[in-house]
């Protein structure tokens, strides 16, 4: 498993506490970039601008990635465009919502 795969796996442990679905299956993670020095840049969004769990989720993402031994610096970049839409969810995420 390479570092990028490990990062994505770690992100599956970060849950939206309202929906109880992890940020990967919820489709919140747009990009994971890992440099040759193992600096990690995560580009992500939230289901709605002004989500009250804004700080909690982004901090959770940072902590989860920092918990991987190989990673060095971690940067979490929160974006609103392109906006989140249900199409970004995985089949597992949709299943958990009862869809």
């Amino acid at each position: 498993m390479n570092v990028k795969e490990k990062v994505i796996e770690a992100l599956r442990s970060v849950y939206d506490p309202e929906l109880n679905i992890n940020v990967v299956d919820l489709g919140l993670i747009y990009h994971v970039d890992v440099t040759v020095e193992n600096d990690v840049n995560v580009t992500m969004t939230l289901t709605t601008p002004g989500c009250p769990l804004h700080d909690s989720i982004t901090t959770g993402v940072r902590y989860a990635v920092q918990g991987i031994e190989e990673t060095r610096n971690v940067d979490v970049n929160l974006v609103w465009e392109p906006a989140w839409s249900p199409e970004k969810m995985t089949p597992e995420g949709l299943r958990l919502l009862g869809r």
Partner: protein
Amino acid sequence: MVPNTMGSETNIKLPFSFIIFSLVALVLSQILVLVNGQMLVDGSFRIPAIWSAAHLLVLGWALMVAMGAMYQLVPVAFLTKIWNEKFGFVQFFVTAIGIASFSWMLYVSPQKALVPGIFMLLGILMFLFQMFMTLRKQAKPNILTAFVGSALVCLFLTIFLGITLIFSLQTGFAAQFYQAIFKSHLLMGVTGWFTLLIFGFSYKMAPMFSLSHGFPMIHARYVYGLYMAGLAVTLISFFNDNSYLLKSGFFLLFAGFSVFTWHVSIIIKKRLKKKLDHSFSYALGAIGLGNLIHLAAFIALWTDHFSILIGPLVYLYLLLWIVLSIMGYLFKIVPFLWWTYKYSKEMGKKAVPSLKDVMNEKVVVPFFSVFVIAVLAVFLSIIFKSILLFNIGQFVLSIVFVAIALTILGVLKK
């Protein structure tokens, strides 16, 4: 891609201070109503104990909850931080002391309620100032700003009219308009402040809790226009005593509320979350009940029994629309506040509970169902003047209120 690094979390001690005070006021208001049941059944709504209980319920509980919730929700809904949190704590103490002393004075000596009333007014004015300073920082005002901003204006008018009533009672000032001012005070407080506020925040919370996407927002403009017109026309009708204007005003209010109900149903149909949380479902149910009460009030206007029915209908509106909505949302807001305080820093480091694990959701259906039945029993007891039914209904209601208050406080142990 547009980055956004703006956080939205408020120091939870601020909203929590308001919410804990409110739960105590809720329990006290119920005890007062229970003790003075006979007078209510006799149709004596305007007695010191009922004034005190009504203000403890409406100001001590509902207003304080609304203020606490706004300290939490305004940054969420308007993407702007609270202007000054320290000022918020000072505002809490001033308002809490003001409401407690005002309610007490209404009970023991209403003629002396002016000074505590002014103290309470100061607390509410501080809140309005805080919100004004916060909202003016909003980058792009939207229809939610119109709802919440208008609700705040109505709150100011409610308090202003309330103080005028006390002043009139004490000095005889504007005595010929006393009835009109009293009705306007109720209209601005109940349908102006609370309804507009719940409308505004529902537009943020309903899609958030149901994970709805792709719904239209154009209806909100019609809701706002119709409801505001209804408030204005009804207000004018009180002062020129015109029954056609009153009927037109009540119709516009009903029409505005109906469009809101329709709009929320469109939003909910567009949801991704198939199974909604029970407490949120009750908050949605409260919208339907509020709509029915608006219709009932409009129909009652065309009968000879309006003066008898309007008191019980206002009671029903307060309990089944405003209180039920607030309680439904409180079961979502309080766990969120506590979870943020206790677990947000642990997220990503170890497994943390979900918001559902923090609140005991199993009690919602029995508690809220009994609440609705008890309110209907009290309503019918007032209509049919049945002291037995009133005592049973109000006793059950008080017990449910206390149980709900303890369940909410129980979150602090999770």
